[in-house]
């Protein structure tokens, strides 16, 4: 294990190099990809706390039938805003914007992304989208359409859905520009010698993700624009009274929003593929298989959107095709899981915090993914569609998958980013509590869904009471875990023990060969790559 330290003289880290700017301008005017990554991180942390509070409020409301905390209108607004924030402001930009920005150029041996100014611009667009979402909370009241904005309700409601939809539209642009930047960076700026198949897996997943961002996001852009046209001009695209077809809205919405779930999960899988070999001290098993499965998910994932519409009245032919394709798209995910577990075989595993997150990711992801198969089956989905079962599925996979990977990633790269160490025992305590809370929170929802409790229900029948209580208790446990993790990270980022150790975990990729924290342009001299990644001999 190499734990070389460099002496701190003679180089200035990106955190010290402020381009001669003052105060906050050191950050919001900097085009350094690392600072931009952190800008996203901070913005997301704020949003995330809002989203978590909203989630908790819903759970408190659902602890008992009838009104416990808020009125139906407030509840409807709560799950809408919760969904919009979590999906559009957190998990879609999530890993690519934070760790993609920070690590991608370093991992491929570049000094920055291809278009640094465009990169900063994307962040501003992201903030603008966030502001629009905030604006939607005032005036006629927060939107109450669900994050899916289904027509025709979405243009009949008197609430402020337009700013929220425009917010999502604007956020889409941010996402597109980030994707564009990453594709160009990967095509043009890989260090000499780094052929495509010598590239680490995290950049690979970012590459797949970027293509989805580029090719799927415009569809929701135009769809939301059409909804705006509908609301402002009354054109009638989706208004049955004027000949429009509400199902076409659903098609267009899911043409984006299904691929979007792979925007969320692919980088998460990439982060896991980084963490596991590092802590197993072993080459990743089946590198090429993982690469191809990434591309396969990105590609096939584009063509399964119809599985959100099994009961909407599509033709039998379409249902047949969509169900089949949905099952096919599960295969590449399965391949990844098998390869990760095989990587552990005959490794030399140290169960540090990031590894714990990665292993629990695999477990949670399997539950989320396998219940996805349940939903993909035509007969079963007719029964469980729009019930708590779906809510459980996507929390397991979105939040369990992306969230666990995110935490794994931040614990993995923490010292590289901040040049400080966190307290491992607190981190571990937080992880255990979080994990237990998570399963208790979302587990019962599967049962509720099978029993037939519909989603987006502010109130429910007495027969659903028991599991809801368990679930709410789970939420409280989980939030306790979350707070421990969060406080530990924030405290450590500000006051933690300083470190300049280049490679604390003994990783093999380039980010472990630059100083900690990295200098402004990452490398003095662009490295020349002559061997494959994840080599431990």
């Amino acid at each position: 294990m190499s734990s070389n330290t460099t002496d701190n003289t003679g180089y200035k880290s990106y955190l010290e190099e402020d381009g001669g700017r003052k105060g906050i301008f050191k950050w919001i005017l900097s085009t350094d990809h690392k600072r931009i990554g952190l800008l996203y991180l901070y913005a997301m942390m704020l949003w995330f706390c809002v989203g978590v509070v909203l989630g908790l409020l819903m759970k408190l409301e659902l602890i008992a039938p009838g009104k416990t905390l808020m009125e139906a209108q407030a509840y409807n607004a709560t799950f809408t805003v919760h969904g919009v924030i979590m999906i559009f402001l957190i998990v879609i930009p999530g890993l690519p914007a934070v760790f993609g920005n920070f690590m991608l150029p370093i991992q491929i041996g570049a000094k920055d992304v291809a278009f640094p100014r465009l990169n900063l611009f994307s962040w501003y667009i992201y903030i603008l989208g966030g502001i629009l979402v905030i604006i939607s909370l005032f005036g006629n009241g927060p939107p109450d359409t669900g994050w899916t904005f289904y027509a025709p309700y979405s243009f009949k409601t008197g609430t402020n859905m337009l700013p929220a939809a425009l917010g999502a539209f604007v956020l889409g642009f941010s996402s597109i520009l980030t994707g564009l930047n990453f594709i160009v960076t990967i095509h043009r700026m890989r260090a000499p010698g780094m052929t495509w198949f010598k590239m680490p897996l995290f950049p690979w997943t970012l590459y797949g993700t970027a293509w989805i961002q580029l090719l799927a996001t415009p569809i929701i852009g135009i769809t939301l624009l059409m909804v705006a046209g509908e609301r402002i001009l009354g054109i009638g695209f989706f208004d049955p009274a004027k000949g429009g077809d509400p199902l076409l809205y659903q098609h267009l919405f899911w043409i984006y929003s299904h691929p979007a779930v792979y925007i969320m999960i692919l980088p998460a899988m990439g982060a896991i593929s980084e963490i596991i070999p590092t802590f197993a001290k072993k080459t990743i098993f089946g590198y090429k298989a993982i690469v191809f499965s990434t591309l396969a998910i990105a590609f096939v994932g584009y063509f399964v959107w119809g599985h959100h519409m099994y009961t909407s009245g599509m033709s039998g032919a379409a249902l047949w095709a969509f169900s089949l394709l949905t099952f096919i798209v599960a295969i590449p995910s399965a391949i990844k899981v098998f390869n990760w577990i095989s990587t552990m075989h005959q490794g030399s595993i140290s169960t540090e915090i990031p590894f714990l997150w990665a292993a629990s990711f695999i477990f949670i992801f399997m539950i989320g993914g396998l219940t996805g198969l349940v939903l993909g089956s035509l007969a079963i989905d007719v029964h469980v569609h729009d019930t708590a079962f779906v809510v459980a599925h996507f929390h397991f996979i979105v939040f369990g998958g992306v969230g666990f990977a995110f935490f794994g990633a931040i614990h993995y790269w923490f010292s590289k980013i901040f040049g400080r160490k966190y307290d491992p025992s607190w981190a571990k305590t937080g992880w255990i509590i979080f994990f237990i809370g998570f399963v208790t929170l979302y587990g019962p929802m599967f049962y509720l869904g099978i029993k037939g409790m519909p989603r987006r229900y502010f109130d429910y029948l007495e027969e659903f009471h028991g599991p809801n209580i368990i679930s709410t208790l789970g939420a409280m446990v989980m939030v306790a875990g979350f707070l421990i993790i969060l406080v530990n990270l924030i405290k450590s980022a500000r006051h933690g023990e300083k470190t300049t150790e280049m490679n604390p975990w003994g990783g093999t990729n380039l980010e472990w060969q630059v100083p900690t924290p990295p200098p402004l342009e990452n490398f003095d001299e662009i490295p020349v790559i002559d061997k494959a990644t994840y080599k431990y001999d």
Partner: protein
Amino acid sequence: MSESIAHHDEHRDDEASKLGIWLFIFTELLFFGGLFITYAVYRHAHPQAFHMAAQQLDVAVGTINTVILLISSMTIAMATTSIQKKDKRTTLILIGITLVLALVFLVNKYFEWSAKIDHGIWPGSPLLEELGKGDTLFFGLYFFMTGLHALHIIIGMILIIVIFVRVRKDKISFDNFQLLENGGLYWHLVDLIWIFLFPLFYLIT
């Protein structure tokens, strides 16, 4: 080491910016792709009404606009040739023609739209409600898609004006003309979309 700090965004990679603009073009194609799907679905649902409604559009105006866009596409493409031949004057003239043609296109569009509006046809107009669902959708799509296309023309024009100024100031020259080429690519995209809008709205009746 501090000498190498600044200016990391100043290095030039023409191929990268070209790739960038291409990727952006792909996004735009999918953006309009969503509308083409919408069009196809509604045409499928109301073939008769779309047939009748399309006949109300003036093929002549549409054809003229098509020709205008095709010519402007050629002139901007020629500009990349002339700049490489170090012929600044011709370059400026070609870009200028492109701009003028773009303007003519917009003027045509303006008259076409006003004529429709004079006849009581605009999105959500009472007349359309009377005419029925097919017509509502057809003209809704017509205004939406051509409107969005016109918006792209305007964006393209702004871009080309910037390029014009830069060529004049020799910021774009025979060994540094990527911006011109990129602007051209964008302009061709506008043309590409029109190539489909034209038959869909004016021709197929």
